């Protein structure tokens, strides 16, 4: 089989070939390592590549499968982890040279679950330093580059996860999302990114940015692959007190349903915020498509959307500063200046303001819960813009110039405040060929409905079939 086809194949399709012994995990890993070798000089998706480890694991997987010990749909599937997921014996930098020599002694829970499922770790993926930035710029390990146009950002903070999945370097990647860091690079790189409900995927063994806003989630090329990844990584973990003890569904089981009768609320305030005209056109076309497919599209109002920045900004700044305080004191000048500014600014937030933000978060979630009495999902753009140029501190939207960080997080951070599931799924391209994402968000722990709607939309469109020109 053509090596490039193996690299762009979904985990669902690849697993069928591996299970039926039509393709060996060794062949799959070799194809991906070749793809990485060809594209990495342009993309810079990886901080640490693990070719020897991956080849050894592939040979083991091949032997296991030949012996009849097939472990399931992720057996032999190449994965990449954002470099803040601890991996035993493999350095984990969190995107900072300060941790260049940090080699964890234990795997994070997500890495353990992937390993138990037979997935093969290809390497550790580049990221915005300490996950504190939405662009995917990194001055320590080099900036990440968008596969659709390498002069543009990948988005962040899980930028390497976005570029690696979009360019066929990995089949499944993992990111973490505190204000949008799974969904932003997914939207800007033209892939699927799911931020699950808070407490559904363990944070144990991940470098925190904000304890109460961090959500690990899969970044993949198809919705089926997001469901397959969730089947492996979701669930209770005694090492993460936030994880749920609920009985969880098979996330692939819900995918065959239609959106007939599904009530989708379009938040009108999303369209009152700065929004690029091309993005708006693509998102409205996607909503029209969902309507044509049988969904009931209604407009809803959520005025507290405009409070998202103040609420999540206050919480994020405080918690990030608290976590990094000691390192700031000893190695402050080794941080990227913009990250250092963000972290140190958090030291000026008072305890009273932090608690006010937590109170406001409770009201925010109450108001959002009321919306879900009328609708099953909320919808809107994932991002107000397509990927901006690397190092652009401001972007132009319509007639106004806005800060890049604020723009990139404006539609994603509400769902970090609510802790509810949200997915970005490709819904179009700009005239310059840059991807656009549709965001669908659901009730807590109702990933099944989010995935079902995203999958139905995906299967009725062809955006996910396009490949970047790299």
């Amino acid at each position, binding site marked *: 089989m053509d090596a490039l086809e193996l690299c762009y194949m979904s985990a669902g399709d690849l697993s069928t070939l591996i299970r039926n012994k039509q393709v060996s995990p060794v062949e799959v890993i070799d194809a991906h390592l070749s793809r990485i070798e060809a594209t990495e000089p342009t993309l810079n998706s990886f901080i640490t590549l693990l070719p020897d480890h991956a080849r050894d694991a592939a040979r083991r997987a091949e032997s296991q499968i030949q012996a009849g010990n097939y472990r399931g749909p992720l057996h032999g599937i190449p994965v990449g982890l954002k470099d803040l997921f601890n991996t035993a014996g493999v350095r984990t930098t969190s995107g900072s040279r300060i941790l260049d020599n940090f080699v964890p002694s234990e795997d994070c829970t997500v890495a353990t679950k992937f390993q138990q499922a037979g997935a093969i770790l290809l390497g550790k993926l580049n990221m915005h330093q300490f996950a504190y930035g939405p662009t995917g710029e990194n001055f320590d390990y080099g900036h990440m580059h968008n596969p659709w146009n390498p002069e543009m950002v990948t988005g962040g903070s899980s930028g390497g996860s976005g570029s690696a999945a979009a360019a066929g370097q990995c089949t499944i990647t993992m990111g973490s999302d505190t204000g949008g860091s799974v969904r932003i690079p997914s939207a800007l790189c033209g892939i699927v990114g799911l931020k699950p409900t808070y407490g559904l995927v363990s944070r144990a063994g991940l470098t925190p940015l904000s304890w109460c806003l961090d959500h690990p989630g899969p970044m993949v090329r198809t919705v089926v692959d997001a469901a397959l990844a969730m089947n492996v990584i979701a669930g209770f973990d005694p090492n993460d007190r936030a994880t749920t003890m609920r009985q969880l569904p098979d996330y692939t089981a819900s995918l065959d349903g239609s959106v007939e009768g599904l009530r989708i609320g379009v938040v009108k305030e999303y369209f009152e915020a700065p929004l690029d005209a091309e993005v708006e056109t693509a998102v409205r076309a996607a909503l029209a498509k969902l309507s044509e497919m049988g969904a009931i599209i209604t407009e809803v109002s959520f005025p507290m959307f*405009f409070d998202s920045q103040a609420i999540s900004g206050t919480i994020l700044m405080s918690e990030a500063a608290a976590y990094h305080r000691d390192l700031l004191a000893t190695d402050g000048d080794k941080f990227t200046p913009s990250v250092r*500014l963000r972290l140190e*600014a958090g030291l*000026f937030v008072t305890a009273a303001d932090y608690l*006010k933000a937590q*109170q*406001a978060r409770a009201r925010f979630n109450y108001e959002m819960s009321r919306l879900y009495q009328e609708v099953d999902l909320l919808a809107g753009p994932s991002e107000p813009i397509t990927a901006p140029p690397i190092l652009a501190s401001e972007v132009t939207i319509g007639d106004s110039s806005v800060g890049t960080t604020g723009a990139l997080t404006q539609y994603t951070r509400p769902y970090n405040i609510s802790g509810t599931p949200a997915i970005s799924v490709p819904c179009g391209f700009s005239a310059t060929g840059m991807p656009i994402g549709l965001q669908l968000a659901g009730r807590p722990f109702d990933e099944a409905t989010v995935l079902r709607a995203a999958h139905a939309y995906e299967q009725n469109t062809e955006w996910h079939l396009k490949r970047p020109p790299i």
Partner: protein
Amino acid sequence: MPSENSLDRPAFDYLARAAGLDTDNPHMNELFPYVQNAMAANEGLKKIDTTGFEPDSAFDPAHFYQD
């Protein structure tokens, strides 16, 4: 832009010292306007009516007691 209620430099220096930052570092000249802007961006928080809403808390007195 800094708001009318934003920190002045002496107050900033006082708080910076209290937070353990080196106020003699030239970096403080960058941090000062950054903090002013960040506080202005979050100022909307004060206007949110939170009457009747308690902050969510992860506190669990039984957390370290295993059955």
